[in-house]
């Protein structure tokens, strides 16, 4: 695909707000509409940090580099503006919002996308919600539960994908959505993502995962390996397969020679 990238980061650096140590040490990433990118890397290498920095988490500050989304300077936008212009992140650890039902939550999120004075059609909303829940094999009554309140690990992940399905982002960042899912749930979630992409082929996906298993169901166009806040290798699906074999040993060595030099 030869379109302009939907997301382009160059030398993106970030640290925890007001702390010294950088976590992202220069990330270059280019994602075009419709592409699926996977990011793999050892624990603590900065995957979730990258996702949160792209979504605009106030706990992190960008110390260098750039990030453009759909031609606009992403770093200039507030978290909610990013979301409304099409960035979505499925959280690795979503928080509970007691007393707020999933339906109410999503209704509010959709309403926020409308122009001032425009009202969301509640019947249309119900239809969309039910249809999406069916796609993800969720019981309709689930929509009445308070967001993530007392949810099992798997329910939380499924709820993240439900939100993604309803909000229809241009770029979906999925942070370890596969972890904690049983094999059936994994297939349901993967089918959901694939269906969404079939409906909207321009949707780009950034999958953060530790396991090749997810990539059997959602096939990536590109795989990146991130170690210590930098992308150290990019390639096709074969990169993931080789990781399955050899782990991160060779990259860590690369890393230590690099820092020794």
């Amino acid at each position: 695909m030869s379109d302009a990238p939907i997301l382009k980061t160059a030398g993106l650096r970030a640290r925890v707000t007001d702390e010294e140590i950088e976590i992202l040490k220069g990330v270059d990433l280019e994602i075009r509409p419709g592409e699926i990118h996977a990011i793999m890397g050892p624990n603590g290498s900065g995957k979730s940090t990258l996702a949160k920095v792209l979504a605009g988490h106030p706990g992190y500050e960008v110390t260098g580099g750039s990030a453009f989304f759909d031609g606009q300077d992403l770093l200039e936008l507030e978290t909610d503006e990013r979301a409304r212009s099409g960035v979505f992140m499925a959280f690795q650890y979503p928080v509970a919002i007691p007393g707020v039902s999933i339906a109410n939550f999503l209704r509010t999120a959709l309403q926020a996308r409308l122009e001032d004075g425009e009202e969301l059609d509640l019947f249309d909303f119900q239809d969309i919600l039910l249809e999406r829940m069916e796609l993800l094999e969720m019981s309709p009554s689930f929509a009445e539960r308070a967001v993530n309140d007392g949810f099992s690990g798997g329910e939380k992940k499924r709820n993240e994908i439900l939100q993604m399905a309803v909000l229809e982002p241009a770029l979906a960042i999925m942070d370890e959505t596969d972890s904690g899912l049983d094999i059936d749930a994994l297939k349901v979630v993967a089918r959901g993502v694939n269906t969404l992409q079939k409906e909207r082929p321009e949707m780009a996906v950034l999958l953060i995962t530790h396991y090749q298993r997810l990539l059997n169901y959602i096939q990536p166009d590109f795989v990146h390996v991130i170690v210590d806040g930098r992308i150290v290798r990019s390639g096709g699906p074969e990169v993931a397969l080789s990781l399955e074999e050899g782990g991160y040993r060779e990259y860590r060595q690369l890393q230590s020679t690099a820092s020794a030099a």
Partner: protein
Amino acid sequence: MPTNEAVQDIGLDDYKYHFITEDEPVFRSGRGLNEKVVREISAQKGEPQWMLDFRLKSLDIYNAKPMPTWGGDLSQLESVLSDIFFYVRPQERMERSWDDVPANIKETFDRLGIPEAEREILAGVGAQYESEMVYHSLKEEWEAQGVIFDSIEDGLRNHPELFREHFATVVPPGDNKFAAMNSAVWSGGSFVYIPPGVELETPLQAYFRVNQEQMGQFERTLIIADEGSRAHYIEGCTAPVYSTESFHSGVIEIVVKPGAHFRYTTIQNWSNNMYNLVTQRSLVHENATMEWLDGNLGSKLTMKYPSCFLVGERAHGSILSIAYAGNGQHQDTGGKVIHAAPRTSSSIVSKSISKGSGRASYRGLCKVYEGSTDAKSNVECDALLIDEAARTDTYPYIEIDENQSTVGHEARVSKVGEEQLFYLMSRGMPEEEAMALIVRGFIEPIARQLPLEYAVELNRLIELEMEGSVG
């Protein structure tokens, strides 16, 4: 969400009841509280001698009792009280037809949406303006079944025995300084009687409005829910914003006879220079249930602890309250349950939200007398802090003289977390809406108990209060 239109409607001030009606009262007492004022009030109402005696005795009790030193800061109150008018009579008589209410007063209640509510969802409506009820009406079908819903003055006039049998039996003047004050100068409020077995399907509502600057409102409400009856009473209160302090001190007495079920809902939204010190108490007989649902917004200081005296076997009392303490406000609220019979049960759920320099305190008492075997009580306090400066504290008093009883207490404080806000904002909600949604979720267990219109109103009021709370 508040639409832009709604926000414009309110203007620059986020208190939507800030409009002042220009009018001349037909009578106004002098400033401050003294015997002359008490005698004037009684004479204006043409009361029987026993009531005048009761008032004068109450005034003595008031003068003898020291200002409470607990609860909120009452150090300025003495001087506020010497400046306010204790009695302001807005019109000659109370009206039964909305059309007969004087235009300026009618306009006030029109703006508050009272007549519409009456047409649509209520069994009866009462409206108090300054010191007097200006309007009272009850749907005919309920009147035909013997329901009484009247001003407290008409209750005394038209049902003297029933009135005297119950008046001041639940809250005697000696109970506390402000109950004594109210007993001396009470004016306005409702008298309600629900006959045995009668079940009111829709609520009765009373609306209290203080319009004059520097006045005190002292309504007194007496409710008798006779055996096996069932009803719901709702009260709403507002006042415009003045630069000087005003004072509101009501007394609500409720007798819930055997097997009856009564719910009393309050949504108070006073302007933030109002002292609001209210005594609300119910006497709950065997197999009866009393539910207080108490929403406190606005005011400078609110001290209010709805209580249930569970005096009959298997009596049940429930107190659900929500308080919102914005900048400069102190909400000192909670509940009291007294178990004085076997197998009585009670539950207190208290939720508070504080923002900025606002302070919300929970103050509660659970007392179980000896012999109240198998009594059960559960207290839950839940405080939400909107920002770093906000403050909350909890003063639970538990006194148990009966070993064979169960009392549970649980208190939680939470802050609106960065992670919660980020989560909502990452779904496209602007920060204010995200905050409002979190708060709405927090009060949902209480809002759910309200009739829909009131739940919507409560949410709206809190959203208005919160506007400008972020950024």
